[in-house]
């Protein structure tokens, strides 16, 4: 009876996956989709989601073959000692970089939208300190925080989507597919960045109560972002139009601002406040992944001292970019390494099957 409740439940795993995906990207996603796929942005988002589902299935199968270890440990097993170590180092690098990137993107958005006169450093330090508090609590605390924040975040995004529905002008979709499939495929590749975060499944399986259900829990957690993202892009293009969406810095905030009523004159602030919750969970999960990978890389088990090492590094990386173009370079690096990371699950899986490594 009591042993059942020690690890993560399936619902918690789904909540973590959802929260690690929905984060910074929700702010920029409609612009990205509109820039690369034009009016086919919603289709591209949906297809990118489908591709991600396939990747999640691969990740889950690979993880379920090694239900007692994280990717750091079994990549050493599969790839050998030195290659595995290098691969683990790459994961640490990627997760830490992503955490920093989310932190920086978040702080920039906050500075523009909510706190124009507050220094960037203050916003970032406050955020990273509460992240430290949460990560220090361990995976159980993170899972529960995700559970608690799931409902309010989804409700606010849902309100944004539903209340924009009457304003969707279907004529904007009249020329769908008119540019052939090239923009859609381009879109899929670029939208994949928005779905990054499901890699957390690599790290969750050893902590699950029932690791055999990792596949369902992972895909279940992915379905929510797919639905949210697709409908959000659909709304943005339908309400604002593909070309204006591509011009806007924060198209989602624009959508939220449109539904302000007499009482909530600025619904966008309300949206922003709840968006902070989802960004917070994303950073926390990435920081957790980074510190856990670093610990397991050296075959240690207490990851808590490593957070205190990683937090200043994360802050320093987030402070590095001086302007938008440097941030974009960072974003490209992350996009590339993210795809590399998840794509690596295919050769890992094949190697694991060939070399008959299990457990």
């Amino acid at each position, binding site marked *: *009876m*009591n042993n059942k*409740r*020690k690890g993560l*439940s399936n*619902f*918690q795993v789904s909540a973590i996956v959802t929260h690690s995906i929905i984060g910074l990207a929700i702010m920029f996603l409609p612009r990205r989709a509109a820039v690369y796929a034009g009016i086919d942005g919603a289709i591209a988002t949906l297809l990118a989601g489908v591709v991600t589902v396939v990747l999640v299935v691969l990740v889950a199968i690979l993880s379920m073959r090694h239900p007692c270890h994280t990717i750091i440990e079994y990549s050493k097993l599969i790839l050998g000692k030195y290659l595995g170590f290098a691969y683990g180092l790459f994961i640490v690098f990627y997760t830490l970089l992503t955490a920093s990137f989310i932190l920086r993107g978040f702080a920039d958005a*906050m500075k523009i939208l*909510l*706190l124009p006169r*507050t220094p960037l450093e*203050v*916003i970032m330090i*406050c*955020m990273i300190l*509460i992240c430290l*508090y*949460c990560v220090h*609590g361990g995976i159980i*605390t993170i*899972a*529960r*925080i995700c*559970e*608690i*924040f799931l409902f309010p975040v989804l409700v606010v995004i849902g309100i944004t989507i539903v209340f924009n529905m009457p304003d969707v002008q279907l004529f904007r979709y009249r020329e769908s597919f008119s540019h052939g499939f090239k923009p859609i495929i381009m879109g899929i590749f670029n939208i994949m960045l928005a779905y990054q975060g499901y890699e957390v499944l690599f790290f969750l399986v050893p902590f699950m109560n029932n690791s055999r259900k990792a596949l369902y829990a992972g895909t279940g957690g992915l379905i929510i972002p797919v639905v949210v993202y697709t409908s959000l892009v659909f709304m943005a293009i339908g309400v604002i139009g593909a070309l204006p969406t591509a011009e806007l810095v924060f198209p989602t905030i624009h959508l939220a601002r449109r539904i302000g009523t*007499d*009482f*909530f*004159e*600025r619904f966008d*602030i*309300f949206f*922003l*406040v709840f968006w*902070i*919750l989802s960004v*917070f969970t994303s950073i926390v999960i990435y920081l957790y992944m980074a510190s856990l990978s670093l610990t397991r890389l050296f075959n240690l088990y207490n990851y808590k001292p490593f957070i205190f090492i990683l937090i200043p590094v994360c802050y320093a990386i987030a402070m590095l970019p001086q302007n938008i173009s440097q941030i974009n370079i960072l974003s490209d690096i992350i996009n590339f390494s993210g795809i590399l990371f998840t794509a690596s699950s295919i050769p890992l899986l094949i190697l694991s099957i060939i070399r008959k490594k299990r457990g």
Partner: protein
Amino acid sequence: MKIIQRKKNPKNKKIIEERQKINTKSEKRASGLQLSTNLEENYKKFQAFLKESTDIVFRKFKLGKSDIDCALIYVDGLIDKTVVHDAVLRPMMFEISKLVSELDNELSADKAYDFVLNHTISVADIKETDNLDEAILFVMSGEVALLVDGFNKIIIVSARGWPARGISDPDTEGVIRGAKEGFTETLRTNTALLRRKCKDPNMVIRTIRLGRRSKTDIAYIYIKGITNDELLKELEERLSRIDIDQIIDSGHLEQLIQDNTWSPLPQIQATERPDKAVANLMEGRILILVDNSPFALIIPSTFSQFFQSPEDYNERWIVSTFIRILRWISSFLAVFTPAIYISVVTYHPGFIPTRLALSIAATRAGVPFPSIIEALLMEITIELLRESGARLPGAIGQTIGIVGGIIIGDAAVNAGLTSPIMVIVVALTAIASFVIPTYSAAVGLRTMRFPLMIIASFLGLYGVIIGFIIINIHLVSIKSFGVNYMSPQAPTIFQDMKDFVIRVPARKMRKRPIQAYPIDMIRMDMD
């Protein structure tokens, strides 16, 4: 259920041992002394311990017409004198001779003890002891020690009776529909109140004594077959670790056995209501009653329990659900309203409708302080009013509340110290915090709003949300006796959601909540 082991620091072991030596020296203990068969010696031993106090009564008398010495020792004021007179002294001094002659017996010295015990004293509750230490403890807790010459045993006659407060309305947890009786200061009355509500022989009332000097009776009550054994073991373990001179009240005991000291919120619920207590026993929880305290402790407790009132189950489910939602909203308001007000006024005036923003700005035009000073001033004032109202006698307290609330509020606005909107915010916060049925939880939540106000004045809504996140991280990471504080919300237990924000119809609550890991899950069988 994870058992939290709290180990005594080995470094302190030596210090603790040394301290214990000192303590036992300063405590008068009779454990080394043996009772003799001579009454005079025993009597002197008692006197050695108790002579200095004026409230101890020593009474020597002869048994009937014989020459056998007897003695009574009791604490004046703690016993029912009519019982001692009618059921102990009169039979032993007069009626015993008649009884002896009727039975054609002789009152010899070797039979006197048995005869007194079996035929003379007409009191139901009688104990025997041959331990002086124990006998003194009995005397101090209101029983009568009866010594008979020639025997090294003491008869303890239970004739407790002292002036006590009667059963009255529970002050802190009033209900409109529901029982109107509350616990009192006497442990025995409280257990009787529980027995009246649950006649199940499986309801076990165990009593231990805590406090080296105060020897406070502490009863823990559970229902065998529902309560999880691990929970019981954990409680006994924690109680056994307590080594203190006095247990003042159940609130004191609560702090000695709780999980997390660094939290403003109570992890153990205190209640004055027997009906609530029994309902919690039925969910597999354990109840602790402390003598001299009208508050019972319920362990384990979760955060959602503080929003439940016994009335919820007596009213129709739709009404109760509405009231539950009201309570959750009010708890949010009690914590966050002043912080949100400060951040909206200072940083985000666009958040509210333009006209309202303009009117707030207009009313604030004459106020000389920034909004944080204004808010702190008014919030501290209302806390002062609340505290003074609670300390003053009933009628004056209410007057102070009204006078303070209306006059100070109005005068503060007229004097230009604060804006009318701020008065509304403060009043709303105060009213909202009193909606929460559990006093200690309400106080804990109210305390949180001051740090939130300060962080909101620095970072606006971002600060408020940071505060919200910190509170949530804290709430999900604490536990109450191995039970997660935020369940059923986190970790999500869908089954327990039936009694969370929505209180489902009584017919649908067929199973007990699994928060306390009860052994027997089925509450109701229905076809």
